[in-house]
C-alpha cells in the first residue's frame, strides 16, 4: 500500500522483543481487541495511539498481566507469558492515576519493588538515591504522596517504575494530568531517560501530538484493531487509511473515481474539479472504483490569480482566516460546498498581495504531495 519504505523493514532483521499473536479480548459480548497481531522491538519508544475505547489500554494491561487474552498469545523474548501473573513478569508499569502508596513515603514507594526482590538494604538505598536524582526529587524523599504536587507525584511514579531497571516499561497516559508546559517538558525528559537507560517504552495515549513527538514508532488503533504501525513521519506523510489520515494532523480529503495510472501518476476524477487530479503515488484499484485523494493543508499553495500549472488546480472563495502568528489557516469554500483548509507561513510582515476574506482564490498541490487511499 505504501511505497515509502518504513523503518519496520530495517528492524525486522532483529527478533521482535514483544509479540502479540492473534490476540483477542472479549468482555461478555463486547469485543475490545479483535484478532490483533503486532511486533515490538527492543529499545523502541513505541506508542499505542487511538481514540477512547479503541482498546489501547486493554492491550497494555494484557501485557502487564492484569487482563488475560480470550484468544491468542503474548510472547516476551519468544516465551509465552499469557499465563504468568503480573507479579512474576519482568515488566513494570506507570499508572495513569500514579497509584502511589498513600501510607508510604516517597522513599518507601520507590524502594517497594526492590524490597520484593529481597535486595540487601544498602543496595536498595543506593538505587533509591539514584532514582531520586534522576527525577530530581531528592529533597522530597521523606514526604508522603498527599504532600506533593501533581507533577511531583508523577515523577515519583516514574522513579518507582524504573527502580527495578526493567527491560520493558509500560506507561498508561502518563502525561494526561499535567498542564501543557509541564507536559512538553516531561515528554523530552522521558525521551532522554529512555535513551540513557536503554529501556523499551510502550506508551498509551490519545494525544497524537504527544505520540508524534516522543515515539520511534506508533501503532494507530481503532475499535480493537491496529490500523497502521509506522514511524511518525510515515504515518503523517503516508497514512494507510482515511481514519489514520484524519486522526493524525489535519487533512483534506477528496472523494473521486479511479481513472487509471499514467506517466504523471494516479488519475482521479472528482466532482470538485473539471479536470482530472493527480497523485504521484501508485495504488492498487479497479478502474471506476471509488478512491480518495488526501492532501495536508500545508502542502497546498494559494493564489489570487490562476497559476501557471497544468493540473491539480481548484477554485474557491476564502470564507475564514485563522491567524496563528507564524502561519495562517485559510478556509476555502469550493463551488460544490466542500471546505478546504490551507496553511501557509506568514513570510512577510505585511503585503498588498495578502489574501483576505471573500477573495476568489486558486489552490494547487504537487502530485508528489498527495496520497491516494482506497479506504
Amino acid at each position, binding site marked *: 500500500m505504501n511505497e515509502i519504505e518504513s523503518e519496520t523493514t530495517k528492524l525486522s532483521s532483529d527478533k521482535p522483543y514483544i509479540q502479540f499473536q492473534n490476540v483477542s479480548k472479549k468482555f461478555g459480548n463486547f469485543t475490545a481487541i479483535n484478532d490483533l497481531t503486532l511486533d515490538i522491538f527492543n529499545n523502541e519508544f513505541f506508542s499505542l495511539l487511538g481514540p477512547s475505547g479503541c482498546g489501547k489500554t486493554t492491550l497494555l494491561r494484557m501485557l502487564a498481566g492484569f487482563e488475560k487474552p480470550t484468544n491468542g498469545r503474548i510472547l516476551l523474548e519468544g516465551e509465552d507469558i499469557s499465563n504468568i501473573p*503480573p*507479579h*512474576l513478569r519482568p515488566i*513494570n508499569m506507570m499508572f*495513569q492515576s500514579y497509584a502511589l502508596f498513600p*501510607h508510604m513515603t516517597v522513599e518507601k514507594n520507590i524502594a517497594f519493588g526492590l524490597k520484593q526482590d529481597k535486595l540487601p538494604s544498602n543496595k536498595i538505598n543506593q538505587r533509591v538515591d539514584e532514582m531520586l536524582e534522576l527525577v530530581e526529587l531528592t529533597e522530597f524523599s521523606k514526604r508522603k504522596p498527599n504532600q506533593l504536587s501533581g507533577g511531583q507525584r508523577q515523577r515519583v511514579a516514574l522513579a518507582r517504575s524504573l527502580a527495578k531497571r526493567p527491560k520493558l516499561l509500560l506507561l498508561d497516559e502518563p502525561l494526561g494530568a499535567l498542564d501543557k508546559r509541564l507536559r512538553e517538558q516531561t515528554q523530552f525528559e522521558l525521551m532522554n531517560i529512555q535513551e540513557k537507560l536503554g529501556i523499551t517504552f510502550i506508551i498509551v495515549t490519545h494525544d497524537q501530538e504527544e505520540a508524534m513527538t516522543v515515539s520511534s514508532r506508533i501503532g494507530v488503533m481503532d475499535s480493537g484493531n491496529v490500523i497502521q504501525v509506522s514511524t511518525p513521519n510515515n504515518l503523517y506523510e503516508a497514512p494507510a487509511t482515511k481514519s489514520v489520515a484524519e486522526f493524525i494532523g489535519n487533512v483534506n480529503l477528496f472523494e473521486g473515481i479511479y481513472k487509471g495510472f499514467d506517466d504523471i501518476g494516479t488519475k482521479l476524477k472528482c466532482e470538485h474539479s473539471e479536470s482530472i487530479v493527480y497523485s504521484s503515488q501508485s495504488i492498487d484499484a479497479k478502474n471506476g472504483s471509488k478512491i480518495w485523494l488526501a492532501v495536508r493543508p500545508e502542502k497546498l499553495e494559494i493564489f489570487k490569480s490562476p497559476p501557471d500549472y497544468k493540473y491539480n488546480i481548484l477554485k474557491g472563495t476564502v470564507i475564514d482566516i485563522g491567524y496563528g502568528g507564524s502561519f495562517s489557516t485559510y478556509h476555502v469554500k469550493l463551488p460544490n460546498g466542500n471546505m478546504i483548509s490551507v496553511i501557509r507561513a506568514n513570510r512577510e510582515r505585511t503585503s498588498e498581495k495578502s489574501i483576505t476574506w471573500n477573495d476568489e482564490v486558486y489552490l494547487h498541490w504537487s502530485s508528489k504531495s498527495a496520497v491516494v487511499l482506497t479506504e
Partner: protein
Amino acid sequence: MIKFTKFNLCALILGFSFLYIPIVLLIIFSFNESKLVTVWAGFSTKWYTELFNNQSIKDATWVTIQVAFISSTVATFLGTIAGIVITRFGSFKGRTLFSGMIYAPMVVPEVIIGLSLLLTFVALTIDRGIFTVTLAHITFSMCYVAVVVQSRMSSYDDSITEAALDLGCTPLKTFFVVTLPIIMPAVVSGWLLSFTLSLDDLVIASFTSGPGATTLPMKIYSMVRLGVTPEINAVSTILIGLVSIGVVSAAMINKYQKQKEYVQS
C-alpha cells in the same frame, strides 16, 4: 450557596433533644437519693455502691466483656475477608448466595436468628453457654464488619493494588502490606461496631446462652421486669461514660495524628 436555614437548626435541635434527653435523665437519676424516677430526693451515690456489691451484675459484666472482645475480634477477621471478597473477587460460583448471607443478618429479626441458632446448637448437641453466645455474636457481627469494609473498598483505588503486583509483590503480601494499612480505619470501626453490637445484644443472647453465662443485657432485662431500681441507671451511666470517653479519645487521637502528619511535611 446552600443555606443552613432556621428550619434546619430547629430540626437539629429538636432531633438531638429527642435522642439525648432520655440519656441525660438516666444519668441524672442515677444519682438520685430516692428510688423513684420522678422525685428528686437529693444527690447520692448509693446506687453505685450497691452496684459494686452486686455480684451477679459483676459476673454478668465479665461474661459480656469476654464475649464482646472475642466475638468482635473473630468477626472483624471474618468480616474483613468477606467484605474484600464481595468487592474485589469478581464473580464466582455461589456469589449470589454469599452476598445474600452477608446482607440478610442486618435485616432479619433477631428473634428468628436467635431461635434458629439455638435449635442448631441443640441439634448438634452443643451445650449452651459462653461458647455458643460467642459463636452467635460472631455470626451476626461479621456481616456488619463486611458491610463497613465493603463500603470502604468501593472507594479504594484498585490501581494501587495493581501497582504493588506490578512491582513484584505477591497477592497475599500485597493485602497485608498495602491494602490492609490503607483500609485500617474501616477495619477498626468494624471492630468497634461489633463490640457495641455484642455488648448490646439481648434477644440473641437470651436464646443462645446457657447457665452460668448470663450476659449484662440479660441481667438488666430481668432487673427491669422485676421492678425499676436505679441500680440500672448506675450501670447505664457507667456504660455511657465509658463509651463517651472511648469515642472522644478516639476522635482526639485521630486529630492528633493528622496534626502530626501536617507538621512533618
